[in-house]
């Protein structure tokens, strides 16, 4: 833009990527949809990291949020309903050089893909998982989702969602080998940015639940939170998500929480009177599946043939 090759930086880049390099087709979500904010933030984080777009893969399932890959300038994989996580794990399995992002929703991840959710957390493949949780099925037009608040009127439950809403935080925290659990809201850009940035830096599966506005089908899910931020609890800690003064001013309810403390994280997540935002849990040392799945990548043709011949020997007569 304006003939400038780079931002104001003294560093010399061999290739410099602008925000535009990470952007794809024009996003077509409803006006006021929270997904726009997340998309822009992902572009920003990638831009800051200056990762080559061709080395980045955005994987998704099916749903409103799963349109995200189409709005990226990177490689993308717009998969099937519920299957984003195994697709993404497969992409990364033999290509540790790729930067993998997953965009999924509450229906995609917590309902039809719930089995994969549990196991993806356990595999702990190095990737970012952004769950766009608007507590409703949007693309299919207003059906109850696992996180729909009790009583929310939907097309499948006109008299109100009958079950207590699922708590994705306690579920995720309860999975063996969980390594990164954060929660944020789409309408606070600085906190959203810092959360996704931190998630991207973590080596392992970074699970980020984004409470996301759907002004068309579930306005009552986010509006009360936007209007009364005291219903939320900002988690602060030097190892947590950085929160500047603007964030702290909005979220007056705060709690110092060490993300290494799992028991405390679980008790914060369980307390549904206050919705926590910030980093609930972080274990940078949890084993990542990539270390296992990338075995043998360096084998040469000669080594491969020798290995098959050794295998033959076991059955030779």
């Amino acid at each position, binding site marked *: 833009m304006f003939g400038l090759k780079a931002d104001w930086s003294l560093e010399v880049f061999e290739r410099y990527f602008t925000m535009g390099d990470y952007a*794809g*087709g024009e996003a077509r979500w409803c006006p006021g949809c929270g997904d726009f904010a997340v998309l822009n933030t992902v572009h920003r984080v990638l831009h800051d990291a200056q990762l*080559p*777009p*061709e*080395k980045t*893969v*955005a*994987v998704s399932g099916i749903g409103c949020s799963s349109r995200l*890959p*189409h709005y*990226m*300038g*990177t*490689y*993308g*994989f*717009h*998969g*099937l309903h519920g*299957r984003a*996580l*195994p*697709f*993404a*794990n*497969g*992409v*990364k*399995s*033999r*290509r540790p*050089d*790729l930067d993998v992002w997953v965009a999924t929703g509450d229906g995609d991840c917590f309902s039809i893909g719930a*089995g*994969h959710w*549990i*196991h993806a957390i356990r595999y702990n493949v190095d990737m970012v998982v952004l769950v766009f949780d608007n507590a409703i099925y949007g693309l299919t037009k207003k059906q109850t989702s696992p996180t729909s608040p009790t009583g929310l009127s939907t097309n499948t439950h006109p008299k109100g969602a009958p079950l207590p809403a699922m708590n994705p935080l306690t579920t995720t925290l309860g999975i063996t080998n969980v390594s990164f659990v954060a929660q944020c809201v789409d309408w606070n850009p600085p906190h959203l940015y810092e959360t996704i940035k931190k998630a991207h830096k973590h080596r392992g599966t970074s699970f980020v639940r984004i409470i996301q506005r759907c002004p068309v089908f579930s306005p009552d899910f986010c509006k009360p939170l936007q209007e009364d931020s005291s219903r939320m609890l900002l988690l602060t800690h030097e190892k947590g998500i950085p929160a500047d003064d603007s964030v702290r001013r909005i979220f007056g309810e705060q709690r110092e929480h060490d993300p290494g403390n799992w028991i405390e994280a679980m008790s914060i997540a369980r307390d549904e009177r206050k919705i926590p935002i910030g980093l609930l849990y972080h274990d940078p040392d949890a084993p990542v599946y990539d270390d*296992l*799945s*990338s*075995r*043998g*990548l*360096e*084998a040469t*043709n000669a*080594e*491969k*043939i020798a*290995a*098959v*011949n*050794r*295998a*033959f020997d*076991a*059955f*030779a*007569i």
Partner: protein
Amino acid sequence: MTTKTTSGATETPKQRGAKIIKEHIVEVVSDSGEGAQKCGQTFGSVSGKMSNGVWTVEIIPAEIQPPARSPAGASGIRIRLASKRVTNMGDEADLVVAFNEQVLFSRVANGAYKKGTIVLLENKWSEDPQESIRQQYAAAVKEFAEHGLVVHEVPMEVECLKLVKDARKGKNMFVLGMLCHIYSRDLDKALAEIAATFARKGDKVIKANHDLFQSGYDYAASHIDYHWEIPAEQGDLGPTLVTNGNTAVGLGVMAAGMDLVSMYPITPATSATHYIADIFHEAGGFIHQAEDEIAAVAYAVGASFAGKTACTITSGPGMALKTEVLGLAVMAEIPLVVVDVQRGGPSTGLPTKVEQGDLLSTLYGMPGDAPKIIIAPATIEECFHFVILARKLAEAFRGPVFVLTDANLATGVQPWTRPVLSEDWLAAPIDQGAWDRNVPAYDWNETTGLSQRPIPGQRGGEYVLTGLSHTNRSKVAYDSDTNQTTCEHRSRKLAALAQTLNPPEIHGDEQGDLLVVGWGSTKGAIEEAVDLLRENGHRVSSIHPRFISPMEPGMQEIFSRFKKVMTVEINYSDKLGDPLITEETRRYAQLAGLLRAKTLVDVDCWSVVYGHPMQPGLIYSELEQRLRA
């Protein structure tokens, strides 16, 4: 008096000369967990190493530990050994060793035996403390005799207890010793095979098993009158491997240079990954055991999208679960090898038993039009080579390739030529060079539908794969023309492949009264039956296409040279004459229906779903009846 020979064998002074025979079928049947299969596998391996023709097949109960002494619990193995090459499990057994009398009942009911089949039967049950067991045993022995079986009672338990405290563990080696004497097997080869089997367990275990083996060998030498020799007449086979079809698939995966096998445990497919699980990484690959069938195929598709060659191995119920992802692989043109080791269906069906029931569901079991390549290996050797072929086809034709094997190939064990490995079989390293931005991600050739694909990491090739209808730049497009033309492109890939195929080879004369068409594991049995019919003056031939989709060319022309055409398959079909079954209501066997639609020839069929491999004798009598009619 007995004396030790140099090889450690003991022979009676009255050593009988062995009678020369061409072939025999032997079964070892026991309760589950008594090691009959290990015994038979070792016997088969030793015979293979002696250059005999061998086919072994396991007799598997569906439960891991069914109740002892129950007909349903029959677990064991059949070994068909011959002077010449053997291609199938054959018909009735000549000799069977049974660890108890009850397990024999299910085999008798299955028609596994004939008048004159020799039964070497554990006799400890005749003195069992429980009267009911003693009575069962006596009644069974009587009943077997009435069936024409020749029963010899053998004190296996008593003999084994001279060497070990628990005869349940080790009786199989005693039996192996008996069989090796009865069939004049090479002792050194047998001892070496046992040592190899127990190598991981240490010398003490090897010694104990050698002693049990020797004891069985000596017992047969001095107590059993049968002594046969089956000389190998195949000549020098050259370097040879002895494996079952599943192991051949696993070795094929390695030899194809695959990066990934992504699977979920399912009978009878899983063992394809068992042998290579520990060594695949040495050949540059990784086995991912996914959380479910869907995740297994999704993981493979993800890896393939990223340029890595991937494979998933499953069976019918797994295929059903994977269907949606496989449709995506067709729609988004992602190379993938899918091995379906077919078992009995529908639903959970017959998990351990054979059926060729997945042909139509593989071909058509997806929403919309989903053209795909389907190949069916007909031998254990082809199980190996077809995986390599499938990988190449998947990449060249940019889509999933289905390899349909079955439980018969999976568990049958046969010697086959050791392949000379080639670098050409290995997957090429992925291209990470820059992609010309002017070339779309689906640069379809108008005639062939073929295209090159960009791989993540290639600068300039960035595209978003989608299962939605899409343009050549992979942009979502719901318009009529895009959907129509992209369907055409995907379909034309099959026509393009068909151009490169040859018509099937005809087994027998080029024309005649009857042409039998088979596919998959039935080749050996069909050809054996056809050969016997031809020897008896019938004008019968057979073909065995390996490419099912696209179909090998020239079918209609070949059919025109025969008065009648029929398929022989292991899947369900109605039989004319059955209640309510008329020409109008009759449902045909799967390949038969396909061939009828393709060729407009009145292709008949004979198919059964007994759960066991096709037997040459059954085919023979069915075909002979039709030829006489």
